[in-house]
């Protein structure tokens, strides 16, 4: 008998269910708690960089908007630094949390994040990654949270050499990862869970 590998198994995921908002955005669902919902604002003061709005809707395989999803985003500041305890490269903008959470609009499901355009973050081998925002989607019917990335259509040069985008086998799916400019400082990033327009989701 060889030695035993004694690693623990990751806790299995389960759906967030239709009432995820009770726990994660209680004020949104009418339960006054915590003095406000966590992740409702990403700016705690004047921020460095270009302020932008990212909007979008999550659609199911029938093209219906999800009105019970929760979307979280995580991103670097305008210098490509994360407001994280394990950021070792320097100090991130102290007025920018880098993390946002949205339950979407109660009637339309449209989510909105008031954020900033992230700077470039290096890939493990040192190559620059194009500016991107990590997004994580949970909802009723989703058994394990879906990871994707929001890139920007107007960063064509950076996108063309991004180590992740260039790895995608079906290059015709890249537009599903690009937020499209929609007016001054506003980008639209719709997410399609299933079907011909399906967003690229990551196993990271």
């Amino acid at each position, binding site marked *: 008998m060889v030695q035993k590998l004694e690693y623990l198994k990751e806790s299995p995921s389960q759906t967030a*269910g239709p009432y995820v908002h009770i726990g994660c955005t209680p004020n949104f669902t009418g339960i006054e708690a915590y003095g406000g919902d966590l992740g409702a604002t990403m700016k705690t003061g004047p921020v460095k960089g270009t302020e932008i709005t990212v909007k979008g809707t999550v659609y199911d395989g029938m093209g219906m908007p999800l009105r019970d999803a929760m979307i979280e985003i995580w991103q670097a500041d305008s210098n490509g630094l994360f407001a994280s305890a394990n950021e070792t490269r320097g100090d991130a903008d102290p007025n920018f949390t880098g993390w946002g959470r949205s339950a979407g609009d109660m009637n339309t499901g449209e989510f909105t994040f008031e954020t900033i355009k992230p700077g470039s973050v290096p890939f493990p081998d040192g190559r620059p990654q194009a500016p991107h925002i990590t997004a994580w989607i949970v909802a009723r019917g989703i058994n394990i949270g879906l990871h994707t990335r929001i890139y920007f259509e107007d960063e064509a040069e950076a996108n063309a050499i991004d180590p992740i985008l260039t790895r995608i086998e079906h290059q015709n799916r890249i537009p599903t990862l690009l937020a499209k400019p929609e007016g001054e400082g506003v980008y639209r990033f719709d997410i399609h869970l299933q079907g011909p327009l399906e967003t690229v989701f990551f196993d990271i």
Partner: protein
Amino acid sequence: MSLIKQTGGFVPRDRDWQPDALTPPYKTSLKRSPQAALLSFPTTLSEETSPVFGHNLIGELDNDLILNHAQPGESAIGPRIIVHGRVLDEMGRGVPGALLEVWQANAGGRYRHKKESYQAALDPNFGGCGRTITAEDGSYEFRTIQPGPYPWPNGMNDWRPAHIHFSVFGHGFAQRLITQMYFEGDPHIKLCPIVGVLKSQEAVDALTAPLDMHRTVPMDSRAYKFDIVLRGQRQTYFENRKEGL
């Protein structure tokens, strides 16, 4: 012990152990599951970093669901329990500073949510949400009432087992996890299509909290123990190897 700097990337998620996206007996998954393969790549800084939530975020009653929505002098109705455990990584190390958010129905199986229409009554002294941050050794605890089972429109007569939802942040966004805790001995566990997305009895057991008489407070509250395991992070020794592997 404080946060250890570990930037060796996260161990890949075991997709043979985690539930699939498409699980037809859980009907909503049919049109909410991606059909294309997931794009795999080793974690980068974007996934190895995560927001920091300080202990000063947490209010005095945030981890006490018996009292945090109750009128002064009153408390929620139902079996009083303590839920406690540790947040660990796959290597068995405690994860300090992890934010846990929990939510649940009341003792009658009724959620405080405007889209919920189950006829069981709301408890005016129960909100159903709580949160806490793990200590230096990864341990946590909160106090609540044991939730009741509730019916849901999936099959003709499906009932969820009693459960508490958990949302967990680790030290990297790649560890982000939402799951559910079940209670030892609940006969609904083996009937439930959502539990049924789990691929083995071992996985079901990993989400089932045993009654813990050691932590039960006599004449006050019973206790259940629920450990949570997040993805492990590799050490940094081979950090500059190509691909970080």
